[in-house]
């Protein structure tokens, strides 16, 4: 049996697959960020907190209303999206004509407040959430838990559907047009502010959906989002701010790179993405899939 840099090929396949699973989370989160940035020009720092709220939403639905995982998978993102839209209507909307920095400060502040509220109520060590799909399949080279397989498939479907809607449908073309020239689109009788609100809600809903998917696999805790969001921002920057396909491809790609780092040099696994970000920014400042505006 041959070995590749000291790692048997079976183990390597396993790690590649694991990388894809992590990449699924990166892809979904960075997709939401990219949609929001692309259409609203807002750097949504509340994204991590909204991901966390999605996970907590699933927990609350289960423990207060008895709604199992599959129901929460639909309900929790909708609830969090509605909260997001209220935030957009009442706060974010007032900042569009100002510099990016104000939106960033507002969303960052909101994230801290949300985290603080959840920590006060539920503590910092998190809450238990049971796996809805226990068991797994032995693929020969690794044991693939059923739930993880489901996460990859679900995430791929959601990502591609989003890409399709924005890039290939009439609704998507309105959205893209509204980004470029909101005044013109409005002149054609389209309610641009409402479209922006719904877009923000959709991006937030994606974050919450990732949160629900994370609940059975990761610790459901108030800080689960802030730990992840920094990496996701790096993913978005590498992919190119605002690029939909860029967010999806880099999300999965970087998951794989990180997964391989965990085998070859685990100590660096939390930094490798930032190293890549630095290199990409030097070579291609607009990101791999971005176009300089």
């Amino acid at each position, binding site marked *: 049996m041959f070995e590749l840099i000291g790692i048997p090929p079976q*183990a390597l396949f*396993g*790690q590649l697959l*694991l*990388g894809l*699973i*992590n990449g699924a989370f990166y892809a979904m989160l960075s997709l939401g960020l990219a949609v929001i940035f692309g259409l609203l020009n807002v750097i949504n720092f509340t994204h991590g907190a909204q991901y966390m709220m999605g996970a907590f939403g699933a927990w609350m639905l289960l423990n207060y209303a008895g709604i199992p995982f599959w129901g929460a998978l639909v309900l929790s993102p909708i609830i969090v999206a509605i909260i997001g839209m209220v935030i957009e209507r009442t706060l974010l909307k007032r900042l569009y004509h100002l510099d990016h920095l104000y939106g960033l400060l507002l969303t960052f502040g909101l994230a801290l407040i949300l985290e*603080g509220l959840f*920590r006060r109520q539920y*503590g*910092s*060590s*998190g*809450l*238990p959430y*049971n*796996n809805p799909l*226990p*068991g*797994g399949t032995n693929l020969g080279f*690794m*044991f693939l*838990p059923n*739930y*993880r397989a489901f996460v990859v498939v679900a995430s791929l479907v959601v990502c591609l559907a989003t890409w399709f809607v924005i890039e290939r449908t009439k609704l998507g073309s309105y959205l893209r047009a509204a980004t470029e020239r909101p005044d013109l689109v409005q002149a054609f009788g389209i309610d641009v502010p409402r479209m922006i609100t719904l877009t923000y809600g959709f991006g937030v809903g994606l974050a919450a959906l990732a949160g629900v998917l994370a609940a059975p*696999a*990761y*610790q459901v*805790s108030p*800080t*689960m989002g802030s*730990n*992840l969001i920094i990496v996701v921002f790096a993913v978005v920057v590498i992919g190119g701010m605002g690029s939909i396909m860029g967010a999806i491809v880099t999300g999965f790609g970087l998951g794989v790179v990180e*997964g391989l780092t*965990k*085998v070859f040099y*685990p*100590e660096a*696994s*939390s*930094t490798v993405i930032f190293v890549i970000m630095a290199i990409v920014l030097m070579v291609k400042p607009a990101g791999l899939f971005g176009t300089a505006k």
Partner: protein
Amino acid sequence: MRLAAVLLAAASVVVAAGAAKAQVPVKIGVLNDQSGLYADLGGQGSVWAAKKAVEDFGAAAKGLKVDVIFADHQNKADVGTSIARQWYDVDGVDVILDVPNSGVALAVSGVTKEKNKVFINSGAATSDLTGKACTPNTVHWTYDTWALANGTGKAIVKTGGDTWFFLTADYAFGHALERDTSKVVAENGGKVVGSVKVPLNNADFSSFLLQAQSSKAKVIGLANAGGDTINSIKQSAEYGIVEGGQKLAGLLIFLTDVHSLGLKTAQGLTLTEAWYWDQTDANRKFADAFAAANGGKRPTMVQAGVYAGTLHYLKAVEALKSAKDGAAVVAKMKEIPTDDPLFGKGEVRVDGRTIHPMYLYEVKKPSESKGPWDYYTLKATIPANEAFRPLSESDCPLVKKG
């Protein structure tokens, strides 16, 4: 002239009498994680415990005027040291308590020695605090990596778990825990087949768990804490690690971690703690008061250690009638035997280590638990004289001098 002398004498008598009655000021600073992954096991609960100790000690009646303040070190050594300096230099803090996170604790211990104040650690694990990094100003109250290794590590090797693979948190604490446990494993006839260093605050352990799985070690030692331990255990259930015949050894698991995991996932884990709320009447009484003030939560061993450490510190200050000379207070703490409702009778050893029994627990099955926070069954008591690193093995310079 004579009148002036008489007046002066009279005045000095009054002043002296006043001084005798004047209260000795003591300022206690609880420095810990208030917002991150260790906030539940210490956090505000530790602040409450310190205040409770001041109250139970009856400080005011004994001539001590005690203030308790707190701050968040955010698990960053630089934040921790700058707060410690600010407290010692500007705010007049005499003693710092708790300080979970071994990295921060080692840094604060250094500042405390430099300023000749007192540091009573409850939250951090590294045995280096009373080992090669010991100082005449530091007391390590609750537990340490040596005691954890000696408790959980030994118990598991003795039940046949003789090959180990470590998932180690990549900082001072994880390294110390892996080192101390490896030693115990080797001494008891076991073998360490591998280890992987995992960055702190990692969410996904799948990759590391697969590496552990393919190592074929009988035991996977989790040399991590808090959220990292929770995620490792949660995900190992997904990957069927335990069904595959491997055993998980959570080397540092707090009550709050078990609460967070839920008994369904955590059942059957073997763990070592210095204190459990539902063990004695005195503990339960403390826990009830704690729960009433902290939204129904039960205290962890770290919070209990802050309580007991504060109590013992105040006894030493009362005896000296001053909190100003840190080394003198710690010397007094080592001289007086420890005796408090939560940890019982014991001593603070010359290296700063507080000696008390440790306990080996098993996490209950969901069916055995009577409700939230009823989580442990006592498996064994490790007597005080065996629970901590013997002085003969110590690399603390204070021990070699003596």
